[in-house]
């Protein structure tokens, strides 16, 4: 079996005297959805920030597809094929779906116009439509401004933007999802859930941070629970249940380790 898409070993993170993360070992494989649960302040966000290069760990090792990596900045982690989808989506409302999906990797026109920096809108729209299709997502026409989309559609666009940057490459990347359904209703949550599953089926490794236990149970292959900076559980979803997870989250249940 090949090495995990993303692997963290012995990650320590101190904020002054506060130990936010305490020797965390965690890994996610290609095509796997790992749920990251924990109460507020358990260290989920900090861990996510270590993975996305926002924070540098005090100690520990990060490996991407088996290769040791240091993330000095978010750009480094992006470069290594790790994409973060933030809770606040960070879409450009006034621009259309295609422009949002292509931001930072625009297709330039061929010939002299391309040298002047002219963008090939048609090719970008075609690519966006194809990528959305590959994800099995139909939102609106790719020329629709994001501000004219519903909350669920926006979430799908934000997810797709992350996904299109990690999927399809020679080696699939890692998608970090921070509460992707926090602002969504029941039906839209179902849709996002289906999309995450589809991404995993295409070989993307997903790490899902959420407070939503039913979502985690439904979409994840494996769940890790953090409590006060320590990993207290790491189990396949099939071998656990709601009560056990709540026990680990609240600290009522002793650590597996």
């Amino acid at each position, binding site marked *: 079996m090949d090495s995990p898409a993303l692997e963290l070993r012995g990650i320590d993170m101190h904020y002054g005297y506060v130990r936010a993360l305490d020797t965390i070992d965690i890994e996610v494989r290609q095509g796997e959805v790992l749920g990251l649960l924990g109460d507020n302040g358990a260290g989920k966000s900090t861990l996510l920030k270590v993975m996305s290069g926002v924070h540098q760990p005090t100690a520990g090792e990060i490996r991407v597809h088996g290769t040791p990596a240091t993330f000095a900045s*978010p*750009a480094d982690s*992006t470069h290594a094929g790790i994409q*973060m989808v*933030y809770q*606040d989506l*960070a*879409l*450009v*409302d*006034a*621009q259309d779906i295609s*422009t*949002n999906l292509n*931001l*930072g*990797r*625009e297709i*330039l026109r061929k010939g002299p116009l391309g040298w*002047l*920096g*002219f*963008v090939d*809108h048609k090719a970008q729209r075609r690519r966006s*439509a194809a990528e959305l*299709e*590959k994800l*099995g*997502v*139909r*939102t*609106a*026409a790719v*020329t*629709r*401004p994001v*501000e*004219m*989309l*519903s*909350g*669920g*559609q926006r979430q*799908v666009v934000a997810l797709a*933007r992350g996904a299109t940057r990690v999927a399809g490459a020679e080696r699939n990347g890692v998608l970090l999802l921070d509460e992707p359904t926090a602002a969504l*209703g*029941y*039906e*839209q949550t*179902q*849709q996002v859930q*289906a*999309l995450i599953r*589809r991404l995993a089926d295409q070989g993307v490794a997903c790490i899902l941070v959420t407070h939503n236990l039913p979502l985690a149970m439904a979409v994840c292959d494996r769940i890790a629970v953090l409590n006060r900076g320590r990993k207290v559980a790491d189990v396949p979803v099939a071998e656990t249940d709601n009560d056990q997870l709540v026990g680990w989250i609240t600290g009522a249940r002793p650590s597996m380790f």
Partner: protein
Amino acid sequence: MAVTIAPAARAAGAEKDKDPAVIRSLIFVRDRGIFVLWALLLIAFSIWASPYFASVDNAILIANAAAITAIFAAGVAVGIIGGALDLSIPGTAALAGCVCGWLITHGTPTWLSIVAALALGAVVGVINGLITLRGFNPIIVTIGTLSAMSGLAAVIVGGYTIPGLDSLTFMGTQRYLGVPAPVWIVAALFAAGTVFLTRTRDGIRMMAVGGNPEAVRRSGIHSNRYKVLGFVISGFCAALGGLVTTALVTEANPAASPGIIFNALTAVALAGVSLAGGRGSLPRVLVGALILGTISNALTLKGIQPYWATAVTGVLLLGSLALEKWVSTTVSRRLVLSAHASTHTGTR
């Protein structure tokens, strides 16, 4: 409308999705409403102020009268679209005019003086941009540079105007093919600006930075350089406007008139360019400036006091705000409706 997650095979067979008619018409009103408004005004005035209004000569007159406002409005609009309201425009304009005039009277070739003045405008933009990047409020920063620049302009010319800049008339009162030079300049500026904002990578990224710098930064783009770029373009437009003003009167005046910025802002706001940044289009801004010119022209033709033009413009501006509000609430209501509808469409 609904977010449908269908198996890829089924989605592939589905025909290319189009937005429903309602959404399309709302987008039309939002994006093209001002053109319709202008057309209506033109028709109304043609009847009301017949036969003087609807003539080629009068059209050229309107275009020429709107030219200066249009140039400054382009600067203000690009600044706002890029995320910052640039209030230093009158100062930059005065400085550019004075520097150009000073250079010409000191024996510099006219073309070089013009290039120098335009470059100076861009430099003022860089200064504004770099200071703003330090985390200061762009409005305050540009108020600061506004007085710094107009003061500097007065210093350069010793507090007096520089008269007799006849070598500039080629971009002032001169006509080409019967059309005055400022109109050509405006046409070129807006054509170039529109192509830049909608067709080029840098322009699109600049608009995106104005809309949501965080989104751009997270896409792995250095958003700061695009913030500065917005100031540079608005500084360039300010300098160009200053030069055309100077050329029209063949006199460089160090007094920065704040009226410039309010006229320009009116045109920009009429064009529906949101002060929040990230949206707007230059053709609409041009029509905004033309509407201002059209109204004052028609009222003048009918011998109505010019104050009425100002009043009418203000009412139009408020009306356009109301329309914009209506469009955005209608859109969000439609979206809520469709979100309800999607619960019955079934997923998976």
